[in-house]
């Protein structure tokens, strides 16, 4: 893998597409166990990201991710803002100075992102948050020491689906306790879109 700034932009573009297409779906998931704004939040955040990225030139992957991170942090407005923002900021720090990011560094970046989300959210796996998608994805990539599109998509998808059975202990859904069971975690679904978009970007390159 030679992940460049252009690919980083392509990733964000494809992620944005999925989020805009599924804005209402994401909000309806949040309606069930949260406050119903997750689609609105993510759509607003990624809209702002696309705006930023479209109006500037980027030499390094780190710059694209940092800009995206800062924009999500300031525009999303819900918990997912600081969380996805922190994830991308950690990733940008991990690849700083590199014009082309290789598999090993990309995996390290994902590991840092996961650590950042956990620290920001003071949460662990199994609490019905986006961590339940990020953790298995990072684990799989770490085992393989390579970022393979198919594995990425499949891992993220099944992890996302598995959030249905979890009882929430973090985030707004935690107020519902047992009743949060039987519903997908919205942030896990948008995390899945993020990884599915990354898979597409990598496939387009492959």
């Amino acid at each position, binding site marked *: 893998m030679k992940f460049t700034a252009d690919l980083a932009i392509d990733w964000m573009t494809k992620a944005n597409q999925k989020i805009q297409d599924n804005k209402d779906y994401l909000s309806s998931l949040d309606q069930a166990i949260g406050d119903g704004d997750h689609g609105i939040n993510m759509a607003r955040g990624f809209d702002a990201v696309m705006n930023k990225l479209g109006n500037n030139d980027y030499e390094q992957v780190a710059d694209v991710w940092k800009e995206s991170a800062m924009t999500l*942090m300031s525009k999303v407005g819900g918990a997912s803002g*600081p969380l996805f923002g922190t994830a991308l900021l950690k990733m940008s720090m991990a690849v700083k100075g590199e014009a082309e990011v290789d598999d090993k560094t990309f995996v390290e970046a994902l590991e840092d992102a996961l650590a950042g989300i956990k620290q920001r959210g003071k949460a662990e796996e199994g609490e019905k948050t986006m961590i339940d998608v990020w953790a298995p994805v990072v684990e799989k990539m770490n085992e393989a020491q390579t970022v393979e599109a198919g594995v990425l998509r499949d891992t993220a998808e099944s992890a996302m689906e598995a959030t249905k059975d979890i009882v929430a202990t973090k985030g*707004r859904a935690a107020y519902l306790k047992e009743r949060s069971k039987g519903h997908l975690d919205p942030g896990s679904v948008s995390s899945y879109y993020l990884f599915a978009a990354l898979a597409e970007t990598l496939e387009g390159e492959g």
Partner: protein
Amino acid sequence: MANVGIVVISHSEKAAEGIKEIVDQAVGKVAVEAAGGLEDGEIGTSLEKIQAAIQHVHNDQGVVMFYDLGSAKMNAEMAIEMLELENVHLAEAPVLEGAYLAAVEASMGKSLKEIVKALEKEF
């Protein structure tokens, strides 16, 4: 010497401003700033608003911040980290009741440390 400043973070612009209103009415000599809602007034919290509020009330004595619900906490923590200011404390106390108590303490010239202790004792 100035008194410890106070930042009230809420998902609602109205709630944050209302809490500031209650504190201002009762307590003088304390700078209270509201950081409520998104930039457009929608429900949520805004990193920029929080940062601006901190900068607005910050002084040598420090700042104590209050937030309403979980996700506001993350934005509050991020704002503190980014500003890299000394003496900014995010309190784990009810937003309205905590801000009121802290303001009374601050108006008596109490230090940030003393205020944090008073909050921990009460809530």
